[in-house]
């Protein structure tokens, strides 16, 4: 999956890809202070030939609200709401609003799910359906998290860590190897990184074509931009918090 991190104070977008393995669960937001964890499980594209690279996408997005013990699990097939004792399941086939204690789930038929926890943290999951007989593509999910979520100071995770916006400086803009893509140097978290100007897609308004978001691309799975290595964000279960450092 590709990540686009909007940095409002710096007025820029930074993007990176993380290519892990199908089945791996990536921690996106881990906020023990708020009791919220958002994890995504990867699903692979269909493999046509043995040697061909398998692309990964999010096949499941899980939002767990620990104080109420409620987990919302969004897959490309259905939306499950579990509280340990009960399990309520909904399909993408109908528009629905579900409220359980402090967790609200709004499903828009065949389109998106909004999960709001305690009126403080919201996560939007967008459904991407592909042609069932497509040789390689599979259905997948997109995840959109607003910048104004009220995380606690303990928030972390691949996305959660940017709740506290880092200082970013981009300089040394120059022509890159690809004449269409400029390169620059980015100073962030005490690292100097070579970044490439590119664009990624935001599919919220137009799910077919998307709209371009220009961003500075960080190579090597966001290395230097994210804290540590991406593999540190692989967690065992869909409701796992990131272990404390």
């Amino acid at each position, binding site marked *: 999956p590709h990540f686009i991190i909007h940095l409002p104070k710096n007025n820029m977008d930074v993007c990176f890809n993380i290519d892990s393995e199908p089945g791996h669960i990536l921690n996106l937001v881990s906020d023990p202070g708020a009791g919220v964890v958002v994890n995504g499980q990867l699903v692979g594209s269909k493999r046509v030939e043995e040697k061909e690279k398998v692309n990964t996408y999010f096949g499941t997005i899980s939002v767990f609200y620990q104080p109420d013990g409620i987990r919302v699990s969004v897959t490309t097939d259905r939306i499950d709401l579990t509280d340990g004792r009960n399990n309520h399941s909904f399909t993408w086939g*109908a528009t629905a609003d579900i409220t359980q204690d402090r967790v609200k789930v709004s499903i828009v038929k065949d389109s998106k799910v909004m999960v709001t926890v305690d009126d403080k943290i919201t996560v939007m999951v967008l459904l991407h359906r592909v042609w069932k007989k497509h040789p390689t593509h599979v259905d997948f999910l997109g995840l959109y998290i607003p910048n104004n979520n009220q995380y606690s100071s303990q928030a972390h995770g691949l996305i959660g860590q940017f709740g506290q916006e880092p200082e970013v400086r981009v300089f040394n803009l120059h022509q890159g190897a690809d004449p269409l893509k400029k390169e620059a140097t980015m100073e962030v978290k005490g690292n100097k990184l070579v970044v490439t100007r590119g664009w990624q897609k935001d599919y919220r308004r137009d799910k077919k074509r998307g709209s371009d978001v220009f961003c500075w691309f960080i190579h090597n799975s966001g290395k230097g931009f994210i804290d540590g290595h991406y593999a540190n964000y692989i967690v065992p279960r869909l409701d796992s918090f990131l272990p404390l450092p």
Partner: protein
Amino acid sequence: AILTSEEQEDFEAIRGDDITVKSYKVESRITSRFCHTTVKSSVVNSGPNAQSIGFNVQIPKRAFITNFTMNVNGIMFVGSVKEKTVARNLYAQARARGKAAGLVRANSQDMETFKTEVHVPPGSKIEFELHYQEMMQRKLGFYEHSLYLQPGRLVPQFQVDVYIYEPNGIASVETPNTLGEHFSGMAKLTSSKDKAHVVFKPSLQQQRKCENCTTSAIDGIFTVRYDVLRDSNAGELHVSDGHFVHFFAPANLSPLPKNIVFVIDVSGSMWGVKMKQTVEAMQTILDDLTLDDYFSIVDFNHNVRCWSEELVPGSTIQVAEAKKYIQNIKPNGGTNINEALMRAVQMLVKASNQGMIDPRSVSMIMLVSDGDPTVGEIKLSAIQKNVKKVMREEFSLFSLGIGFDVDYDFLERIAMENRGVAQRIYTSHDASDQIRRFYSQVSSPLLRKITVQFPEDSVSDVTQNHFDKYFSGSELVVAGKVLPSESTTLNSFTTAFADRLDLSLQTEADYLELDAALAQQQHAFTGFARQMWAYITVNQLLAERSLAPTAGKKRKITQRILTLAVEHQFVTPLTALLVESEEAKERLLADSPRDPKQGCCAGGSGMVGPRQRTPVQMVHSIPLWVQMTTPAPPSHAERPLPDHITIVEND
């Protein structure tokens, strides 16, 4: 019926000295859970003398007859539904001429018999055709279509066709072998995504009870069971012919916890099989309880006892204790229903006041009784009032009436009035199964306070759209008329509560899509939505009528039922079917006279008991050569009326 040469040979082979049935055909067209069934029979008086030819069809109690036609030696009798008072007058005239006769129904579990006989000269050919309509009711996850087949004789052309068309798709369809081993595997089923066709066409040889037998082995219920695909929990909205039907049957929701008080009649009349089977049923029912459920048992005869004065959790220990208690009950004495129900309500009220009851749980009383009250308050209307007065909005009452000595209508009224349903339990070998089945239907409440709404000015004449509970495996149905609009789609909004969960669901349907699809279907029942709306509305009005507090209100409801039944051609307890020859020179009448135990059901509750209907009576007024015979002896529930009787007819 035109026979093939092979069938003609069969016909000649079985042609006896009396009556020969040339063909017997049953066709059911089920479209979006609404079914139109046609039963056709072609009969010849092949004997040397004039004799009676009968046409008996068992139809489900919840079905409405919509037409009956008869062709006797080329003279066609065509049916039309009329107001009952008109029919009564004709009946009286016919009686005056000594030509009155009746069609009766036998009281079986779910069926009633439409029965007529005509007395005809030798060589006469008669064709009978009966039509009826019913809504499929989903119970325990299936719709079950039952056809009682009893041709009485070997038939060269015997065929049953069941066509199912479900626009959203068929999840499963099967034909369980309920006709017996003899016909195992003979029903042929073909199905696609949204259609299914079941054919049952045994040859003459296959119909024989044994190789050289001249009697037919076909005598039983032919069953087709199916369920539909559901894309979502929001329900399906079908719009057709200016009407809509909304089906709501969410799945994959966790059941709500229950607080349940079992109130069991242990009076002397329960002694023997009834008590044995009630105990058997209770053993299984109690095992179904979980730690999340709370329960107690009240058993009553002239006295009222409680197994536990307070509700207790459904733990293994408590369940075992309760089972032991029930096992040791020895029925005797009178029946004090009022006191027992009061005690059960008090128990729930106390638990509620003590904060023992989870506000999202479902509190219910399950009354099992086999007789009318004989001790304490015996006036049924007073008991009804007393119960209503003490019951809280969040409690509901379910009644099981065992046998025919109980005033089932009363049990149904108190159940309906207190957000529950009633069920008659027939005292047969499977009474405990019947009790268990009923309990299974109501033991998994998934949602509470369900409301289905539509945008303002988009619909009118909407049937019941507020429901107290939704049970797993059932279905809630709301129907109405679609108002003219510039929009091309109709939306529905459903709200409900589940365990710790508030739900709001939305679905939509195109105004024209279904009609276009129906036009492509050869065997669909077009017009299903219009008839289904009327069917539900009439049933709800009949239920409202039985609870109407004043004569004025009852009259108004009666008028609405009459108008609808005549417009949609339903033979209801308030209408009759007039069967006339083409020139209206000769006339027959199919009537449903008043039944003092008449009860009814809410059309859309998804959980209803069988509607008790009355004997269909049929008289003719003119033709000398068509002689209706005296009906079969009435069953226990249909005693002959005394000669001198005071009647208040039609309210």
